[in-house]
């Protein structure tokens, strides 16, 4: 029982990352009709926003410590962050410690800007081109973006820990009335799930309750009609692209304490997030969220030892199998509208 709860938690956690990426992907597809292979790269750039901010916050100057020796036998160079000088070691340390949550504020404008630039500078010119061209040009862009990140940050993973307060785990089982000590779950992963749900909720609320969102939804349903009403749908779509980029970016920011980021983390998620979008139904926002969570849970359960022993290798292929089964039996996906990219 507790193993099942644990794997459901794992699945929700994994799935919320899939859902956030897929949400943006399907938003872009639904509004702009563009298949964006660079979306994984946006997730990765978001993660590196956190790395960048934590680097900025811990910018240091070197102080020589004569009492200690470095590896060459010279006085040890100790790096003292400016933050410590300015705010004192306590507050300065706390600021550096909270770099990841602070990065949310930093990442939102950066990601929106990147998204808008991407849309205006490149994607815009591909609305009328075939899907294959869109896939290919954004695939090229993804390569370029990740190579740029690699050039500046190296290929190795960069540890970007959560604030002290969120490190470690707590007894989730006791919280829901199980025996204590059975279901231990990390704070940050729970936080990640809650954050993802909040973000998804915000996006839905935005689309549901604002006029802006209403127009965008109408545009998703029938672009031409909305265009004929004299509403400048293009500008709104540009903004939607920025928002999608920001959602992916925030997913990346918050993911950094879970797994230290590196330059190809976006590619690792890209294929899966496409599968999520397709399973959920192209252009369906609730579908993306549902499929993300479901596939996360499915993947988690396929990774359980007993399952692997019964079906070796199932953990590696379960997502793809799910995609194949869904595509063959229900091509519009779980919640896709009939007729949207359906054969």
């Amino acid at each position, binding site marked *: 029982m507790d193993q099942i709860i644990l794997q459901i938690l794992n699945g929700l956690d994994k799935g919320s990352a899939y859902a956030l990426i897929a949400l943006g992907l399907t938003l872009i597809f639904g509004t702009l009709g563009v298949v964006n292979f660079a979306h994984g790269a946006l997730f990765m750039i978001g993660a590196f926003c956190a790395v960048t901010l934590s680097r900025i916050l811990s910018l240091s100057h070197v102080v020589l410590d004569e009492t200690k020796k470095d590896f060459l036998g010279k006085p040890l160079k100790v790096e003292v962050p400016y933050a410590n000088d300015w705010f004192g070691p306590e507050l300065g340390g706390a600021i550096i410690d909270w770099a990841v949550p602070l990065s949310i504020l930093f990442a939102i404008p950066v990601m929106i800007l990147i998204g808008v630039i991407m849309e205006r500078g490149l994607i815009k010119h591909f609305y009328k081109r075939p899907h294959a061209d869109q896939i290919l040009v954004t695939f090229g862009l993804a390569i370029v973006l990740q190579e740029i990140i690699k050039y500046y940050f190296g290929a190795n993973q960069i540890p970007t820990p959560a604030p002290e307060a969120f490190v470690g785990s707590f007894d989730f089982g006791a919280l829901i009335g199980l025996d204590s000590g059975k279901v231990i779950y990390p704070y940050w992963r729970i936080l990640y799930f809650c954050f993802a749900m909040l973000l998804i909720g915000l996006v839905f609320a935005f689309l549901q309750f604002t006029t802006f969102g209403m127009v965008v939804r109408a545009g998703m349903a029938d672009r031409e009609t909305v265009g004929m009403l004299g509403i400048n749908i293009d500008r709104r779509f540009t903004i939607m692209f920025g928002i999608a980029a920001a959602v992916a970016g925030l997913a990346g920011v918050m993911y950094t304490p879970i797994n230290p980021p590196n330059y190809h983390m976006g590619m690792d998620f890209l294929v899966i997030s496409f599968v999520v979008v*397709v399973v959920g139904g*192209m252009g369906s926002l609730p579908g993306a969220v549902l499929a993300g969570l479901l596939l996360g849970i499915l993947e988690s359960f396929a990774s359980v030892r007993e399952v692997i022993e019964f079906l070796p290798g199932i953990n590696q292929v379960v997502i793809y199998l799910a995609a194949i089964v869904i595509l063959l039996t229900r091509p519009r996906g779980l919640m896709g509208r009939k007729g949207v990219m359906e054969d």
Partner: protein
Amino acid sequence: MFGLEKRDANLLIAVGALVLLAPIFLNPFPEGSALAQFNAGYPDLMQRFVIFGIFAIGFNILFGLTGYLSFGHAAFLGAGSYAGVWMLKLLTINVIPAIVISTLVAGVFALIIGFISLRRSGIYFSILTLAFAQMSFALAASVLTPITGGETGLQTALDDPRILDAANESRNIPAPSLFGLHMNDSAQLAVGDWLWTFNVGYYVAGIVMLAAFYVAIRIFRSPFGMMLRAIKSNQQRLNYTGLNTRPYMLACFVISGMYAGLAGGLMVSMDPLAGAERMQWTASGEVVLMTILGGVGTLIGPVLGAGLIKYFENIFSKINDNLLHQWFSFLPQGLEDFVVTIIHPFIGKGWHLTLGLMFMAVIIFLPGGLVELGQRASKLFKKRNPPQTGGQKEPAE
């Protein structure tokens, strides 16, 4: 000639001449000169040019003619490679069974995957093929290790049975050969400072590539090829014309898969190792890049694209700062450093960046790839001639 129209025959002859003389013109710079770094006329790379040429030609038969974008084509290359190595291990070190069987195995594999994937089209087809290829890769690298050699790859060994061969007297693993001609044997010709290498394996692969190219031309010009182009153009009309598109697509997919398998079989014949990452989706992406870079739906484009990407991968990636400093040493020190700093991110380990930028540029500005570039250039030359009547149909080159 050979049942081809004059233009196609000329193209075939030109490609044949290119393949024959590649060892010479790929080494345009004398040995030891600063630019010798850009020479590409060594056996491994030349073999790769033609083998990936075959792969790309085959991919183009599918993507170029029907517009179905398979993102899992590397799976067939991998399946062919494994089959090929197993033939080299079990049957004989002679490459013929390896090449034939790898083509057939890939064909069967393509038949199965195609039968399922072709129930959908568009991006769904792409995702289905991607899913199958990723599954093949994941399984080949792990659970199927006894068959595939896992992450290390499958290779020949001293104690392989090789039932058709005489017992191996030497304590060395025999090299793949064609009736005694070793694939890694070469003859070299030196003229002045120039050095040209003529490699057995390269010419074997080259001849197979010419045959594959010839077959591709025939397919492009055949009624079958016309139906495939019709599928790309308007599948609905084709259906209402009384043609069943499904068997056409499946046949095309299998042919295309067999080309990939043939390439895989040749690869292991030149270098008897099959690694699982050959099946990864990025490897499938590579053949897409090749085809697009060269020119989708054109005959010669994929071959050019394959050559360009392999050239980048093998030549550009080996340029390091040391070399850059040598080349720009004629500049004043400060300027030299500056130039090297500017170029540095794009060469050596940054070759992926250059590739990505180049690829984007091609998609944005040259959707027809290198072939379109060539056509535009030749149009520029022909400007003085009276313009042709508008709307003239230019059949796929």
